[in-house]
Protein backbone atom coordinates (compact mmCIF):
# COMPACT_ATOMS: atom_id res chain seq x y z
CA UNK A 1 0.00 0.00 0.00
CA UNK A 2 1.76 3.10 -1.27
CA UNK A 3 1.37 6.54 0.26
CA UNK A 4 -1.09 8.18 -2.11
CA UNK A 5 -1.29 11.49 -0.27
CA UNK A 6 -0.51 14.66 -2.15
CA UNK A 7 -0.34 18.26 -1.04
CA UNK A 8 -1.77 21.03 -3.18
CA UNK A 9 -1.18 24.55 -1.94
CA UNK A 10 -1.04 23.43 1.68
CA UNK A 11 -4.12 21.20 1.45
CA UNK A 12 -3.54 17.50 1.95
CA UNK A 13 -5.54 15.13 -0.25
CA UNK A 14 -5.67 11.44 0.71
CA UNK A 15 -5.05 10.57 -2.94
CA UNK A 16 -4.48 12.61 -6.10
CA UNK A 17 -7.85 11.88 -7.77
CA UNK A 18 -10.52 14.57 -7.98
CA UNK A 19 -13.74 14.44 -10.02
CA UNK A 20 -13.64 17.55 -12.22
CA UNK A 21 -16.01 20.44 -11.93
CA UNK A 22 -19.17 19.99 -13.99
CA UNK A 23 -18.89 16.23 -14.21
CA UNK A 24 -19.89 15.43 -10.66
CA UNK A 25 -22.47 18.02 -9.59
CA UNK A 26 -22.12 18.48 -5.84
CA UNK A 27 -21.48 14.79 -5.35
CA UNK A 28 -24.99 13.78 -4.35
CA UNK A 29 -25.76 11.68 -7.42
CA UNK A 30 -22.61 9.58 -7.16
CA UNK A 31 -22.86 9.16 -3.43
CA UNK A 32 -25.59 6.65 -4.24
CA UNK A 33 -22.89 4.42 -5.75
CA UNK A 34 -19.93 4.90 -3.38
CA UNK A 35 -18.82 6.99 -0.41
CA UNK A 36 -17.23 10.28 -1.43
CA UNK A 37 -14.60 9.72 1.27
CA UNK A 38 -12.75 7.47 -1.17
CA UNK A 39 -11.94 10.49 -3.35
CA UNK A 40 -8.95 12.78 -2.92
CA UNK A 41 -11.27 15.74 -3.33
CA UNK A 42 -14.26 17.03 -5.26
CA UNK A 43 -14.25 20.02 -7.58
CA UNK A 44 -17.85 21.15 -7.32
CA UNK A 45 -20.07 22.38 -10.15
CA UNK A 46 -19.02 25.88 -11.30
CA UNK A 47 -20.98 28.27 -9.15
CA UNK A 48 -21.84 31.90 -9.93
CA UNK A 49 -23.01 34.68 -7.63
CA UNK A 50 -26.65 34.26 -8.61
CA UNK A 51 -28.49 31.22 -9.90
CA UNK A 52 -27.87 30.64 -13.60
CA UNK A 53 -30.11 28.82 -16.09
CA UNK A 54 -27.49 27.83 -18.62
CA UNK A 55 -27.83 27.45 -22.37
CA UNK A 56 -30.76 26.02 -24.34
CA UNK A 57 -30.55 22.31 -25.25
CA UNK A 58 -29.16 20.30 -26.93
CA UNK A 59 -26.13 20.81 -24.74
CA UNK A 60 -24.15 17.70 -25.62
CA UNK A 61 -22.72 16.10 -28.74
CA UNK A 62 -20.68 12.97 -29.14
CA UNK A 63 -17.34 13.12 -30.96
CA UNK A 64 -14.83 10.40 -31.81
CA UNK A 65 -13.44 9.44 -28.40
CA UNK A 66 -14.88 12.51 -26.82
CA UNK A 67 -17.79 14.87 -26.41
CA UNK A 68 -18.79 18.50 -26.61
CA UNK A 69 -20.84 20.25 -23.97
CA UNK A 70 -22.45 23.65 -23.82
CA UNK A 71 -24.14 23.60 -20.43
CA UNK A 72 -23.31 27.25 -19.85
CA UNK A 73 -22.73 27.10 -16.09
CA UNK A 74 -26.25 26.21 -15.01
CA UNK A 75 -26.03 26.34 -11.21
CA UNK A 76 -28.09 27.28 -8.14
CA UNK A 77 -25.91 30.23 -7.07
CA UNK A 78 -23.33 30.63 -4.31
CA UNK A 79 -25.79 31.03 -1.40
CA UNK A 80 -27.48 27.76 -2.27
CA UNK A 81 -24.07 26.14 -2.44
CA UNK A 82 -23.07 27.49 0.97
CA UNK A 83 -26.38 26.71 2.66
CA UNK A 84 -27.52 23.49 0.99
CA UNK A 85 -24.51 21.70 -0.45
CA UNK A 86 -21.41 22.63 1.50
CA UNK A 87 -22.46 21.41 4.98
CA UNK A 88 -23.19 17.97 3.57
CA UNK A 89 -20.03 17.86 1.44
CA UNK A 90 -17.93 18.83 4.45
CA UNK A 91 -19.33 15.84 6.33
CA UNK A 92 -18.12 13.47 3.59
CA UNK A 93 -14.47 13.36 4.63
CA UNK A 94 -12.99 14.60 1.38
CA UNK A 95 -11.39 17.86 0.25
CA UNK A 96 -13.96 20.32 -1.07
CA UNK A 97 -12.74 22.48 -3.93
CA UNK A 98 -15.31 25.14 -4.77
CA UNK A 99 -15.22 25.97 -8.46
CA UNK A 100 -16.39 29.55 -8.96
CA UNK A 101 -17.09 31.65 -12.04
CA UNK A 102 -18.44 35.08 -12.73
CA UNK A 103 -19.53 37.37 -15.52
CA UNK A 104 -17.51 40.18 -13.97
CA UNK A 105 -14.49 40.53 -11.76
CA UNK A 106 -16.73 42.02 -9.06
CA UNK A 107 -18.87 38.89 -9.10
CA UNK A 108 -15.85 36.64 -8.63
CA UNK A 109 -14.58 38.79 -5.78
CA UNK A 110 -17.98 38.74 -4.10
CA UNK A 111 -18.22 34.93 -4.39
CA UNK A 112 -14.75 34.58 -2.86
CA UNK A 113 -15.79 36.89 0.00
CA UNK A 114 -18.88 34.81 0.69
CA UNK A 115 -16.79 31.64 0.76
CA UNK A 116 -14.18 33.16 3.05
CA UNK A 117 -15.98 32.41 6.36
CA UNK A 118 -17.02 28.90 5.22
CA UNK A 119 -14.98 25.74 5.60
CA UNK A 120 -14.41 25.25 1.88
CA UNK A 121 -10.89 23.82 1.55
CA UNK A 122 -9.87 25.47 -1.70
CA UNK A 123 -11.18 27.76 -4.41
CA UNK A 124 -10.82 26.90 -8.06
CA UNK A 125 -11.32 30.11 -10.02
CA UNK A 126 -12.71 29.27 -13.43
CA UNK A 127 -11.44 31.79 -15.95
CA UNK A 128 -11.87 29.38 -18.80
CA UNK A 129 -15.49 28.33 -19.34
CA UNK A 130 -15.99 28.37 -23.11
CA UNK A 131 -19.78 28.30 -22.87
CA UNK A 132 -20.74 31.66 -21.44
CA UNK A 133 -20.72 34.84 -23.46
CA UNK A 134 -19.59 37.11 -20.66
CA UNK A 135 -16.82 36.31 -18.23
CA UNK A 136 -15.66 32.73 -18.34
CA UNK A 137 -12.98 32.28 -20.93
CA UNK A 138 -12.95 36.00 -21.67
CA UNK A 139 -10.75 36.41 -18.59
CA UNK A 140 -8.60 33.42 -19.32
CA UNK A 141 -7.37 34.11 -22.82
CA UNK A 142 -5.34 37.25 -22.16
CA UNK A 143 -2.49 37.55 -19.68
CA UNK A 144 -3.58 40.95 -18.48
CA UNK A 145 -7.20 40.06 -17.67
CA UNK A 146 -6.19 36.69 -16.18
CA UNK A 147 -3.67 38.46 -13.95
CA UNK A 148 -6.11 41.18 -12.99
CA UNK A 149 -8.94 38.89 -11.91
CA UNK A 150 -6.53 36.59 -10.05
CA UNK A 151 -5.13 39.57 -8.13
CA UNK A 152 -8.63 40.78 -7.24
CA UNK A 153 -9.82 37.37 -5.99
CA UNK A 154 -6.49 36.88 -4.19
CA UNK A 155 -7.13 40.05 -2.18
CA UNK A 156 -10.60 38.77 -1.25
CA UNK A 157 -9.57 35.39 0.12
CA UNK A 158 -6.93 33.74 2.25
CA UNK A 159 -8.09 30.32 1.10
CA UNK A 160 -5.82 28.33 -1.18
CA UNK A 161 -6.54 29.67 -4.66
CA UNK A 162 -6.25 27.50 -7.75
CA UNK A 163 -6.87 29.08 -11.15
CA UNK A 164 -8.34 26.88 -13.90
CA UNK A 165 -6.81 27.67 -17.27
CA UNK A 166 -8.15 27.64 -20.79
CA UNK A 167 -6.39 25.66 -23.50
CA UNK A 168 -7.90 27.94 -26.15
CA UNK A 169 -4.90 30.27 -26.10
CA UNK A 170 -1.73 30.82 -28.09
CA UNK A 171 0.62 30.25 -25.19
CA UNK A 172 -0.75 28.74 -21.99
CA UNK A 173 2.52 29.15 -20.11
CA UNK A 174 2.25 32.94 -20.29
CA UNK A 175 -1.20 32.84 -18.71
CA UNK A 176 0.04 30.42 -16.05
CA UNK A 177 2.98 32.70 -15.20
CA UNK A 178 0.67 35.70 -15.08
CA UNK A 179 -1.69 34.13 -12.52
CA UNK A 180 1.22 32.76 -10.50
CA UNK A 181 2.69 36.27 -10.30
CA UNK A 182 -0.60 37.57 -8.89
CA UNK A 183 -0.76 35.05 -6.07
CA UNK A 184 -2.40 31.90 -7.41
CA UNK A 185 -1.40 28.97 -5.18
CA UNK A 186 -1.97 26.40 -7.92
CA UNK A 187 -3.23 26.09 -11.47
CA UNK A 188 -5.52 23.44 -12.94
CA UNK A 189 -5.65 22.63 -16.62
CA UNK A 190 -7.00 22.04 -19.17
CA UNK A 191 -10.56 23.26 -19.36
CA UNK A 192 -12.36 22.09 -22.49
CA UNK A 193 -11.26 22.88 -26.04
CA UNK A 194 -13.71 24.84 -28.15
CA UNK A 195 -15.31 22.57 -30.76
CA UNK A 196 -18.30 22.17 -33.08
CA UNK A 197 -20.37 19.45 -34.78
CA UNK A 198 -22.90 19.87 -37.58
CA UNK A 199 -25.90 17.64 -38.33
CA UNK A 200 -25.70 16.76 -42.03
CA UNK A 201 -29.46 16.42 -42.47
CA UNK A 202 -30.46 19.73 -40.93
CA UNK A 203 -27.22 21.64 -41.57
CA UNK A 204 -27.62 22.82 -38.02
CA UNK A 205 -24.93 22.62 -35.35
CA UNK A 206 -25.74 19.73 -32.99
CA UNK A 207 -25.38 22.11 -30.04
CA UNK A 208 -27.96 24.87 -29.73
CA UNK A 209 -25.09 27.09 -28.61
CA UNK A 210 -23.40 26.25 -31.96
CA UNK A 211 -20.06 25.63 -30.25
CA UNK A 212 -19.07 23.88 -27.05
CA UNK A 213 -16.23 22.56 -24.96
CA UNK A 214 -14.58 19.33 -26.01
CA UNK A 215 -13.41 16.76 -23.50
CA UNK A 216 -12.75 13.04 -23.31
CA UNK A 217 -9.85 10.77 -24.31
CA UNK A 218 -9.40 12.59 -27.64
CA UNK A 219 -8.02 15.68 -25.87
CA UNK A 220 -5.66 13.76 -23.57
CA UNK A 221 -2.41 14.29 -25.54
CA UNK A 222 -3.08 18.02 -25.74
CA UNK A 223 -3.67 18.13 -22.00
CA UNK A 224 -0.46 16.20 -21.28
CA UNK A 225 1.51 18.59 -23.48
CA UNK A 226 0.05 21.68 -21.81
CA UNK A 227 0.51 20.32 -18.28
CA UNK A 228 4.13 19.55 -19.14
CA UNK A 229 4.72 23.04 -20.54
CA UNK A 230 3.05 24.78 -17.61
CA UNK A 231 4.77 22.61 -14.99
CA UNK A 232 8.08 23.68 -16.48
CA UNK A 233 7.07 27.34 -16.45
CA UNK A 234 5.74 27.80 -12.89
CA UNK A 235 6.78 26.92 -9.33
CA UNK A 236 3.24 26.36 -8.00
CA UNK A 237 1.51 22.94 -8.18
CA UNK A 238 -0.28 21.95 -11.36
CA UNK A 239 -3.45 19.88 -11.26
CA UNK A 240 -3.78 18.04 -14.55
CA UNK A 241 -6.95 17.12 -16.36
CA UNK A 242 -8.29 16.52 -19.85
CA UNK A 243 -9.23 13.09 -21.12
CA UNK A 244 -8.02 10.98 -18.21
CA UNK A 245 -10.03 7.78 -18.16
CA UNK A 246 -7.75 5.16 -16.59
CA UNK A 247 -4.93 4.84 -14.06
CA UNK A 248 -2.22 4.84 -16.73
CA UNK A 249 -3.47 8.20 -18.00
CA UNK A 250 -3.18 9.55 -14.46
CA UNK A 251 0.39 8.25 -14.16
CA UNK A 252 1.25 9.86 -17.49
CA UNK A 253 -0.28 13.16 -16.42
CA UNK A 254 1.66 13.10 -13.18
CA UNK A 255 4.91 12.30 -14.98
CA UNK A 256 4.19 15.32 -17.18
CA UNK A 257 4.13 17.48 -14.06
CA UNK A 258 0.73 17.18 -12.40
CA UNK A 259 0.65 16.96 -8.61
CA UNK A 260 -2.93 15.67 -8.75
CA UNK A 261 -5.45 14.88 -11.47
CA UNK A 262 -9.08 15.60 -12.20
CA UNK A 263 -11.44 13.26 -14.02
CA UNK A 264 -14.45 14.50 -15.95
CA UNK A 265 -16.00 12.94 -19.06
CA UNK A 266 -14.81 9.43 -18.14
CA UNK A 267 -17.31 9.44 -15.27
CA UNK A 268 -20.21 9.53 -17.75
CA UNK A 269 -18.99 6.30 -19.29
CA UNK A 270 -18.04 4.68 -16.00
CA UNK A 271 -19.19 6.33 -12.76
CA UNK A 272 -16.58 4.26 -10.92
CA UNK A 273 -13.71 5.65 -13.05
CA UNK A 274 -12.23 7.78 -10.22
CA UNK A 275 -12.12 4.79 -7.86
CA UNK A 276 -10.60 2.55 -10.53
CA UNK A 277 -7.91 5.18 -11.15
CA UNK A 278 -7.13 5.32 -7.41
CA UNK A 279 -6.84 1.51 -7.22
CA UNK A 280 -4.71 1.48 -10.36
CA UNK A 281 -2.35 4.14 -9.01
CA UNK A 282 -1.92 2.18 -5.83
CA UNK A 283 -1.13 -0.99 -7.74
CA UNK A 284 1.26 0.83 -10.05
CA UNK A 285 3.17 2.26 -7.11
CA UNK A 286 3.40 -1.11 -5.37
CA UNK A 287 4.54 -2.89 -8.51
CA UNK A 288 7.17 -0.27 -9.24
CA UNK A 289 8.53 0.21 -5.75
CA UNK A 290 7.22 3.75 -5.48
CA UNK A 291 6.62 4.59 -1.83
CA UNK A 292 4.97 7.95 -2.27
CA UNK A 293 2.93 8.82 -5.32
CA UNK A 294 4.07 12.42 -5.09
CA UNK A 295 7.49 11.20 -6.23
CA UNK A 296 6.00 10.68 -9.68
CA UNK A 297 5.24 14.32 -10.39
CA UNK A 298 7.34 15.78 -13.18
CA UNK A 299 9.52 12.71 -13.64
CA UNK A 300 9.21 12.57 -17.41
CA UNK A 301 12.65 12.43 -18.99
CA UNK A 302 12.31 14.59 -22.10
CA UNK A 303 14.56 13.93 -25.05
Amino acid at each position, binding site marked *: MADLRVNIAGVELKNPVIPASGAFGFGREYEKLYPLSKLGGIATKGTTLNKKDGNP*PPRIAETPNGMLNSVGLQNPGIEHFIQEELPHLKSCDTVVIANIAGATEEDCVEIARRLEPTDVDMIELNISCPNVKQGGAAFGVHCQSAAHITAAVRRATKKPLMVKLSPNVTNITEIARAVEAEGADAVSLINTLLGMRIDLKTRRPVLKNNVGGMSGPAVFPIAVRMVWQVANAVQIPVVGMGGISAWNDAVEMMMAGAAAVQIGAAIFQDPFAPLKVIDGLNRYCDENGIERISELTGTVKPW
Partner: protein
Amino acid sequence: MEQGTYLQGKYQLVEKKNLAKNTYDFTIAAKEMAELAEAGQFVHLRVEGFMLRRPISICEIDRSAGTLRIVFEVRGEGTKQLAKINEGEFVDVLGPLGRGFTLLPANQSVIAVGGGIGVPPMLETAKHYQKNATVIIGFRSANAVILNDDFKACGNDVMLCTDDGTMGAKGFVTQALHKRLMEGHADMIYACGPHAMLKGVVELANEFGVPCEVSLEERMGCGVGACLVCACKTVKNGEEYYAHVCKDGPVFPAEEVIFE
Protein backbone atom coordinates in the same frame (compact mmCIF):
# COMPACT_ATOMS: atom_id res chain seq x y z
CA MET B 1 -34.49 1.57 -0.24
CA GLU B 2 -33.64 5.27 -0.58
CA GLN B 3 -35.44 7.04 -3.40
CA GLY B 4 -33.32 7.34 -6.52
CA THR B 5 -31.16 4.32 -5.78
CA TYR B 6 -29.49 2.98 -8.89
CA LEU B 7 -26.83 0.45 -9.79
CA GLN B 8 -24.18 -0.11 -12.40
CA GLY B 9 -22.84 -3.39 -13.67
CA LYS B 10 -22.61 -5.91 -16.47
CA TYR B 11 -25.78 -7.89 -16.98
CA GLN B 12 -26.54 -10.78 -19.28
CA LEU B 13 -28.71 -10.40 -22.35
CA VAL B 14 -30.93 -13.45 -21.99
CA GLU B 15 -33.30 -12.91 -24.88
CA LYS B 16 -33.01 -10.85 -28.05
CA LYS B 17 -35.71 -10.40 -30.65
CA ASN B 18 -36.08 -8.30 -33.77
CA LEU B 19 -39.59 -6.84 -33.46
CA ALA B 20 -39.67 -4.78 -36.63
CA LYS B 21 -37.18 -3.31 -39.07
CA ASN B 22 -34.41 -1.75 -36.95
CA THR B 23 -36.33 -2.34 -33.73
CA TYR B 24 -34.82 -4.66 -31.12
CA ASP B 25 -36.20 -6.25 -28.00
CA PHE B 26 -33.71 -7.10 -25.24
CA THR B 27 -34.49 -9.01 -22.06
CA ILE B 28 -31.68 -8.46 -19.57
CA ALA B 29 -31.16 -10.49 -16.39
CA ALA B 30 -30.73 -7.82 -13.74
CA LYS B 31 -32.46 -8.99 -10.60
CA GLU B 32 -31.53 -6.09 -8.30
CA MET B 33 -32.44 -3.53 -10.96
CA ALA B 34 -35.77 -5.21 -11.60
CA GLU B 35 -36.50 -4.95 -7.87
CA LEU B 36 -35.88 -1.20 -7.95
CA ALA B 37 -37.37 -0.33 -11.34
CA GLU B 38 -40.64 1.48 -11.89
CA ALA B 39 -42.75 2.03 -15.00
CA GLY B 40 -41.44 4.94 -17.06
CA GLN B 41 -37.86 4.84 -15.77
CA PHE B 42 -34.91 4.23 -18.08
CA VAL B 43 -31.55 2.49 -18.21
CA HIS B 44 -28.33 4.01 -19.54
CA LEU B 45 -26.36 1.56 -21.65
CA ARG B 46 -22.67 1.69 -22.43
CA VAL B 47 -21.85 0.93 -26.03
CA GLU B 48 -18.44 -0.44 -26.96
CA GLY B 49 -16.47 2.19 -28.86
CA PHE B 50 -18.69 5.13 -27.97
CA MET B 51 -18.08 7.89 -25.49
CA LEU B 52 -21.63 8.40 -24.32
CA ARG B 53 -24.10 5.91 -22.91
CA ARG B 54 -27.49 5.49 -24.62
CA PRO B 55 -30.62 6.08 -22.55
CA ILE B 56 -33.36 3.50 -23.29
CA SER B 57 -36.70 3.44 -21.51
CA ILE B 58 -37.77 0.35 -19.62
CA CYS B 59 -40.51 -1.52 -21.46
CA GLU B 60 -41.31 -4.26 -18.96
CA ILE B 61 -40.21 -5.28 -15.48
CA ASP B 62 -40.42 -8.92 -14.42
CA ARG B 63 -39.51 -9.09 -10.75
CA SER B 64 -40.15 -12.81 -10.42
CA ALA B 65 -37.86 -13.62 -13.34
CA GLY B 66 -35.47 -10.86 -12.32
CA THR B 67 -35.39 -9.31 -15.76
CA LEU B 68 -35.78 -5.95 -17.46
CA ARG B 69 -37.06 -5.67 -21.00
CA ILE B 70 -36.07 -2.80 -23.28
CA VAL B 71 -37.15 -2.11 -26.84
CA PHE B 72 -35.13 0.32 -28.93
CA GLU B 73 -34.78 1.54 -32.47
CA VAL B 74 -31.50 1.71 -34.36
CA ARG B 75 -31.14 5.42 -35.04
CA GLY B 76 -27.42 5.96 -35.37
CA GLU B 77 -24.05 4.28 -35.04
CA GLY B 78 -24.37 3.80 -31.28
CA THR B 79 -27.69 1.97 -31.30
CA LYS B 80 -26.46 0.02 -34.36
CA GLN B 81 -23.56 -1.24 -32.26
CA LEU B 82 -25.88 -1.94 -29.34
CA ALA B 83 -28.07 -4.10 -31.58
CA LYS B 84 -25.04 -6.30 -32.36
CA ILE B 85 -24.89 -7.67 -28.81
CA ASN B 86 -25.88 -11.35 -28.84
CA GLU B 87 -27.87 -13.48 -26.44
CA GLY B 88 -25.60 -14.70 -23.66
CA GLU B 89 -23.32 -11.66 -23.88
CA PHE B 90 -23.18 -8.93 -21.27
CA VAL B 91 -24.35 -5.32 -21.35
CA ASP B 92 -23.03 -2.54 -19.11
CA VAL B 93 -26.17 -1.07 -17.58
CA LEU B 94 -26.63 1.97 -15.32
CA GLY B 95 -30.06 2.08 -13.78
CA PRO B 96 -32.86 2.21 -13.06
CA LEU B 97 -32.81 5.96 -13.56
CA GLY B 98 -35.16 8.92 -13.45
CA ARG B 99 -38.73 9.47 -12.36
CA GLY B 100 -41.31 7.17 -13.84
CA PHE B 101 -45.07 7.47 -14.31
CA THR B 102 -47.34 8.02 -11.31
CA LEU B 103 -49.43 4.88 -11.05
CA LEU B 104 -52.94 5.23 -9.65
CA PRO B 105 -54.92 2.38 -8.07
CA ALA B 106 -55.39 -0.28 -10.76
CA ASN B 107 -59.18 0.14 -10.83
CA GLN B 108 -58.86 3.68 -12.19
CA SER B 109 -59.49 4.31 -15.86
CA VAL B 110 -56.45 5.53 -17.75
CA ILE B 111 -55.25 6.13 -21.30
CA ALA B 112 -51.70 5.36 -22.41
CA VAL B 113 -50.64 7.01 -25.66
CA GLY B 114 -47.48 6.01 -27.48
CA GLY B 115 -46.07 7.06 -30.82
CA GLY B 116 -43.41 5.02 -32.63
CA ILE B 117 -40.49 4.23 -30.37
CA GLY B 118 -42.41 6.08 -27.63
CA VAL B 119 -44.63 3.00 -27.35
CA PRO B 120 -42.36 0.68 -25.28
CA PRO B 121 -42.45 2.62 -21.95
CA MET B 122 -46.26 2.38 -22.09
CA LEU B 123 -46.30 -1.40 -21.66
CA GLU B 124 -45.26 -1.61 -18.00
CA THR B 125 -47.57 1.31 -17.26
CA ALA B 126 -50.60 -0.18 -19.03
CA LYS B 127 -49.95 -3.62 -17.54
CA HIS B 128 -50.71 -2.20 -14.10
CA TYR B 129 -54.28 -1.28 -15.17
CA GLN B 130 -55.10 -4.34 -17.33
CA LYS B 131 -58.65 -3.90 -18.70
CA ASN B 132 -58.90 -0.41 -17.23
CA ALA B 133 -56.31 1.00 -19.62
CA THR B 134 -57.05 2.19 -23.11
CA VAL B 135 -53.81 1.96 -25.06
CA ILE B 136 -53.52 4.16 -28.13
CA ILE B 137 -50.45 3.37 -30.18
CA GLY B 138 -49.42 4.89 -33.48
CA PHE B 139 -46.85 3.95 -36.12
CA ARG B 140 -45.83 5.10 -39.59
CA SER B 141 -46.92 1.88 -41.22
CA ALA B 142 -47.88 -1.75 -40.57
CA ASN B 143 -44.26 -2.90 -40.80
CA ALA B 144 -43.29 -0.65 -37.87
CA VAL B 145 -45.99 -1.91 -35.49
CA ILE B 146 -44.57 -3.29 -32.23
CA LEU B 147 -45.96 -4.62 -28.95
CA ASN B 148 -49.58 -4.68 -30.15
CA ASP B 149 -50.04 -8.27 -28.93
CA ASP B 150 -48.22 -7.54 -25.66
CA PHE B 151 -50.76 -4.88 -24.74
CA LYS B 152 -53.63 -7.18 -25.70
CA ALA B 153 -52.14 -9.91 -23.50
CA CYS B 154 -52.29 -7.45 -20.58
CA GLY B 155 -56.02 -7.12 -21.14
CA ASN B 156 -55.72 -3.54 -22.38
CA ASP B 157 -58.20 -2.04 -24.80
CA VAL B 158 -55.87 -1.31 -27.72
CA MET B 159 -56.53 1.32 -30.39
CA LEU B 160 -53.92 0.92 -33.13
CA CYS B 161 -53.26 3.68 -35.66
CA THR B 162 -50.96 3.90 -38.64
CA ASP B 163 -50.19 7.04 -40.62
CA ASP B 164 -50.85 5.24 -43.91
CA GLY B 165 -53.74 3.06 -42.75
CA THR B 166 -51.92 -0.21 -43.52
CA MET B 167 -52.92 -1.55 -40.09
CA GLY B 168 -55.53 -0.40 -37.58
CA ALA B 169 -57.16 2.97 -38.04
CA LYS B 170 -55.68 5.42 -40.54
CA GLY B 171 -54.54 8.56 -38.81
CA PHE B 172 -52.74 9.95 -35.78
CA VAL B 173 -53.01 8.88 -32.16
CA THR B 174 -54.45 12.28 -31.28
CA GLN B 175 -57.53 11.52 -33.41
CA ALA B 176 -58.01 8.21 -31.57
CA LEU B 177 -57.45 9.96 -28.24
CA HIS B 178 -60.13 12.52 -29.06
CA LYS B 179 -62.54 9.73 -29.92
CA ARG B 180 -61.76 7.89 -26.67
CA LEU B 181 -62.16 11.03 -24.55
CA MET B 182 -65.53 11.74 -26.19
CA GLU B 183 -66.68 8.23 -25.26
CA GLY B 184 -66.04 8.45 -21.56
CA HIS B 185 -64.19 9.47 -18.44
CA ALA B 186 -60.47 8.98 -17.85
CA ASP B 187 -58.50 9.55 -14.63
CA MET B 188 -55.11 9.96 -16.25
CA ILE B 189 -53.36 10.15 -19.61
CA TYR B 190 -49.79 8.91 -20.03
CA ALA B 191 -47.90 9.79 -23.20
CA CYS B 192 -44.54 9.20 -24.87
CA GLY B 193 -43.62 9.95 -28.46
CA PRO B 194 -42.53 12.67 -30.86
CA HIS B 195 -42.73 16.28 -29.72
CA ALA B 196 -45.65 17.21 -31.99
CA MET B 197 -47.64 14.21 -30.78
CA LEU B 198 -47.05 15.07 -27.12
CA LYS B 199 -48.12 18.64 -27.74
CA GLY B 200 -51.36 17.41 -29.32
CA VAL B 201 -51.99 14.95 -26.49
CA VAL B 202 -51.45 17.62 -23.85
CA GLU B 203 -53.86 20.00 -25.64
CA LEU B 204 -56.56 17.31 -25.60
CA ALA B 205 -55.86 16.47 -21.95
CA ASN B 206 -56.33 20.13 -21.08
CA GLU B 207 -59.48 20.40 -23.18
CA PHE B 208 -61.04 17.42 -21.40
CA GLY B 209 -59.59 18.29 -18.00
CA VAL B 210 -57.72 15.01 -17.58
CA PRO B 211 -54.39 14.93 -15.67
CA CYS B 212 -51.54 14.02 -17.99
CA GLU B 213 -47.95 12.88 -17.68
CA VAL B 214 -45.49 12.94 -20.56
CA SER B 215 -42.15 11.19 -21.01
CA LEU B 216 -39.51 13.39 -22.65
CA GLU B 217 -36.27 12.80 -24.47
CA GLU B 218 -33.12 14.93 -24.74
CA ARG B 219 -29.48 14.33 -25.59
CA MET B 220 -28.03 13.00 -22.37
CA GLY B 221 -24.68 12.80 -20.60
CA CYS B 222 -24.25 11.26 -17.16
CA GLY B 223 -27.87 10.05 -16.84
CA VAL B 224 -28.00 10.68 -13.10
CA GLY B 225 -28.41 14.45 -12.73
CA ALA B 226 -24.82 15.55 -12.30
CA CYS B 227 -23.73 16.99 -15.64
CA LEU B 228 -26.89 18.99 -16.42
CA VAL B 229 -26.76 18.59 -20.22
CA CYS B 230 -30.23 17.09 -20.81
CA ALA B 231 -32.10 20.32 -20.08
CA CYS B 232 -35.76 20.81 -20.89
CA LYS B 233 -37.72 23.97 -20.31
CA THR B 234 -40.31 23.60 -17.58
CA VAL B 235 -42.41 25.84 -15.39
CA LYS B 236 -43.15 25.37 -11.70
CA ASN B 237 -44.88 27.87 -9.41
CA GLY B 238 -44.94 30.37 -12.27
CA GLU B 239 -41.19 30.25 -12.71
CA GLU B 240 -39.53 28.96 -15.87
CA TYR B 241 -36.40 26.89 -15.47
CA TYR B 242 -34.34 24.20 -17.12
CA ALA B 243 -35.15 20.88 -15.50
CA HIS B 244 -33.18 17.78 -16.46
CA VAL B 245 -34.72 14.84 -18.27
CA CYS B 246 -32.51 12.26 -16.55
CA LYS B 247 -33.25 13.15 -12.94
CA ASP B 248 -36.33 15.39 -12.82
CA GLY B 249 -37.86 13.28 -15.62
CA PRO B 250 -38.05 11.58 -18.03
CA VAL B 251 -41.69 11.73 -16.91
CA PHE B 252 -43.08 15.19 -16.16
CA PRO B 253 -46.57 16.40 -15.27
CA ALA B 254 -47.81 17.90 -18.57
CA GLU B 255 -48.53 21.27 -17.01
CA GLU B 256 -44.85 21.71 -16.14
CA VAL B 257 -43.56 21.19 -19.67
CA ILE B 258 -43.09 24.12 -22.04
CA PHE B 259 -43.56 22.89 -25.59
CA GLU B 260 -41.60 25.28 -27.80
